[in-house]
């Protein structure tokens, strides 16, 4: 249950960015969270509701897009499938290329 500390990091970045951009209010926060990033979206949303009041992000809308897990052959870039661990074309082991993101993509301020 480290969603609280993840949210603290998000709110810190939001506060720093808003101050730097001389905003007074945050209206929207966009996150990209990988399916395999070790973060539960529901718990993150809950943490936002619990922690954002009395911060500059109190009225912000939180938009989370979940990034699905994706594998790819490191040699020929052929997309991986769940049943196969090796690329049928060149026998390389598939590598994970997407799905561990923990990113704050954008914020909207006034």
């Amino acid at each position, binding site marked *: 249950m480290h969603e609280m500390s993840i949210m603290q990091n998000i709110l810190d970045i939001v506060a720093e960015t808003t101050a730097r*951009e001389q905003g007074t209010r945050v209206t929207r926060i966009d996150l990209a969270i990988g399916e395999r990033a070790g973060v539960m979206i529901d718990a993150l949303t809950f943490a936002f509701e619990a922690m954002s009041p009395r911060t500059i992000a109190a009225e912000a809308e939180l938009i989370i897009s979940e990034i699905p897990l994706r594998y790819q052959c490191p040699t020929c870039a052929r997309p991986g499938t769940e049943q196969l661990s090796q690329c049928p074309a060149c026998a390389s082991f598939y590598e994970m290329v997407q799905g561990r993101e*923990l990113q704050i993509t954008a914020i909207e301020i006034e």
Partner: protein
Amino acid sequence: MCDSCGCPADNSTSARRIDLAQDILSRNNDIAGHNRRHLRDRAIFCLNIISAPGSGKTSFLERLGRDYGRETAMAVIVGDQQTDNDQRRLQEAGLAAVQINTGAACHLDADMVHRAMHKLDLASCKLLIIENIGNMVCPTAYDLGEELRIAVISTPEGEDKPAKYPDLILSSDVLLINKVDLLPYLTFDLQECCRQVEEIKPGLPVFAVSATSGEGMAAFWQWLKERWPAE
């Protein structure tokens, strides 16, 4: 809608979108980068060991210290919610050790490791091992500055542990399956376990070991030494 009179004209045009594309844990990652540089400058190889509580992380490190501690100077940073029991066990095995108590936190972060690093005398150290808090999910998000991440599961946990906790498998560089001395008493299916790992992270090296009997330790140590930059 207009703020002053409520008319439909939209004059709240002051809203601005700021594209960040910033890692949420960027502060942690910066400190992890600092740890990594600090250790590389001193030619210290760093490992981050992650497992559920009780998989045998400390036992494995005690064994590693007893078997290879004379050959290679090692130090351990060990995290637990409370107590310094593990620090004492590791010291009794001849290892330099410093305990981090996280209280409420469910993972170690790079800053905790940074502070602990400066409590250790790393002058003669060649291998720094971080034993993370027993938890298979949260620690996977935090880079600590390690060169290799080691996942540990143990046979009493069941062969479907990798399928149940894929985040850890995905983020690790090697998997240890500990307590193989117990295989005769369990229904644990080693082959099935390896098949699941292969599905989640193709090509991940897996070592079946026992911290108790010492089985598999030499093979793992050999593999580890090959990952080390030549001194």
